[in-house]
């Protein structure tokens, strides 16, 4: 029996456990990526790179266990599982997508306890064409860490090819675990919680992409109160944001010295407010919460959803609305370490909601780190949907290749958000950004009139 030192889960990991009902064997926790190489790869070298990965990124070796009814985690010294090789010559693109989708649904054995929590499959397609399917469990990796793992496979591959030293071993995450424990015992944490209590002093308004008249309004969920979801059946709808528009948004953000995601956020919150009949809108922004170099290299899940609540009147010019969002975003980022269970507690206490009750909102994340066109080994990575949903609507905006276009993926809970609502919103998003960038002095109300 291997001697091991166990560590508690970090709060974001506990949040995942809470969100999904303390069952780690949920497919929603599968983060899956399909990697297509832009150059011919040497299969043996690639296999060796994948085998070496956990020695360079120790977070790949982290496993979870149950001890006295609590999840804990430790680093395993077991040899990594052999990489699987899958022969798929002659398959159509549709057949490949169906195959990857099936793999994305697969659960880890033994209820995820004491087992390797990532999976790599090398797929042989025609001739020398190789692809990689990589799946990381959300307890030990978020999307940022999954992409970090793929980048490191490329770095190792290049080092082996060039006969150069392998990349330096990344630090274990236990320093982060310790720093987090210190934060929760600090006055800063108390001040952050007090800030969020003030934030939630007035009960939020409910918004839905479906708009007024849809069942979620009629059925009495007018404030979006509800229990945390465990796992909903979901689908993902991909829609393109053309490269020409992406370029203009990026240029406008650069000229205004604003974060790019604010433009997409403004479009989403403006639309949600309009179709839901309120100027007071919350959109949860999902962030990786990795700022220091240690946080960026140490894996685990640090992701948090931060409610960004804005009240913006329709006569506010587009550029002023962006500045308002910029100020709010900066402010909530200062309190970004307060997590789901704290929010839930605040909401329960302040608005007399049942224990565990929260507000269902739309989630948004902008993830430029999926762009691997500048990595050591040239490849593109596409996220693969796992067939589940954690919230009615989660919009993630990512580059999936080097074309310059972005993909807006609308992960919707089936029987809740209607696909036609997604199509209406996406058409609005494109028109709103086109027009807002062209005439930033125009009010968002006027832009709504033009773009709906």
């Amino acid at each position, binding site marked *: 029996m291997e001697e091991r030192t166990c560590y508690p889960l970090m709060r974001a990991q506990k949040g995942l456990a809470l969100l999904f009902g303390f069952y780690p064997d949920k497919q929603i926790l599968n983060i899956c990526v399909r990697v297509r190489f832009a150059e011919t790869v040497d299969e043996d070298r690639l296999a060796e790179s994948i085998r070496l990965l956990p020695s360079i990124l120790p977070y790949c070796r982290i496993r979870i266990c149950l001890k006295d009814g609590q999840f804990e985690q430790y680093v395993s010294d077991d040899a990594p599982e052999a990489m699987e090789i899958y022969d798929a010559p002659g398959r159509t693109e549709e057949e490949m997508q169906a195959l990857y989708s099936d793999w994305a649904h697969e659960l880890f054995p033994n209820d995820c306890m004491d087992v390797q929590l990532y999976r790599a499959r090398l797929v042989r397609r025609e001739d020398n064409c190789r692809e990689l399917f990589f799946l990381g469990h959300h307890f030990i990796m978020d999307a940022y860490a999954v992409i970090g793992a793929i980048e490191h496979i490329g770095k190792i591959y290049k080092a082996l090819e060039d006969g150069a030293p392998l990349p330096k071993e990344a630090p274990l995450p236990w320093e982060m675990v310790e720093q987090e424990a210190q934060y929760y015992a600090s006055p*800063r944490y108390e001040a952050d919680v007090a800030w969020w209590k003030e934030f939630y002093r007035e009960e939020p308004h409910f918004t839905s992409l479906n708009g007024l008249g849809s069942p979620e309004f009629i059925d009495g969920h007018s404030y979006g109160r509800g229990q945390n979801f465990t796992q909903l059946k979901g689908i993902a709808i991909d829609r393109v944001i053309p490269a020409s528009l992406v370029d203009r948004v990026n240029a406008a953000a650069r000229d205004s*010295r604003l*974060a790019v995601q604010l433009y997409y956020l403004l479009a989403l919150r403006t639309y949600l407010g309009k179709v839901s009949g309120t100027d007071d809108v919350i959109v949860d922004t999902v*962030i990786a*919460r990795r*700022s*220091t*170099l*240690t946080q960026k290299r140490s894996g685990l899940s640090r992701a948090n959803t931060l409610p960004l609540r804005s009240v913006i009147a329709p006569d506010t010019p587009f550029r002023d609305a962006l500045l308002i969002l*910029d*100020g709010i*975003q*900066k*402010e909530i*980022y*200062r309190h*970004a370490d307060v997590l789901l269970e704290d929010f839930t507690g605040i909401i329960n206490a302040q608005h007399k909601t049942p224990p565990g009750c929260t507000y269902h909102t739309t989630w948004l994340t902008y993830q430029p780190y999926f762009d691997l066109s500048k990595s050591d080994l040239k490849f593109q990575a596409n996220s693969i949907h796992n067939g589940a949903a954690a919230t009615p609507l989660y919009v993630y905006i990512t580059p999936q290749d080097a074309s310059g276009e972005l993909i807006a993926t609308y992960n919707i809970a089936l029987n809740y958000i209607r696909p036609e609502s997604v199509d209406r919103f996406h058409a609005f998003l494109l028109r709103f950004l086109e027009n807002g960038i062209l005439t930033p002095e125009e009010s968002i109300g006027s832009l709504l009139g033009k773009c709906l």
Partner: protein
Amino acid sequence: MYESLCEILRNYVEEPEGGLSPDTSFTEDLHMTSLDVMTMIGDVEDRFHITIATEDLNGIYTLRELTEYLEGKI
């Protein structure tokens, strides 16, 4: 002050070729996100035992600008 800020900054970014300079921009040169910058500001507050209002950060984009702001405040 400038050296202390560089020391804090090195926890967040790999030092660029040629090193940090007063004109190094947090977002353009170091590619820091708004979350990175705000987290770093939290560290600066803790280090110097001060509070920095979010609106004060408008117009602060470089190491020089942050240094001058802090020198005026402390």
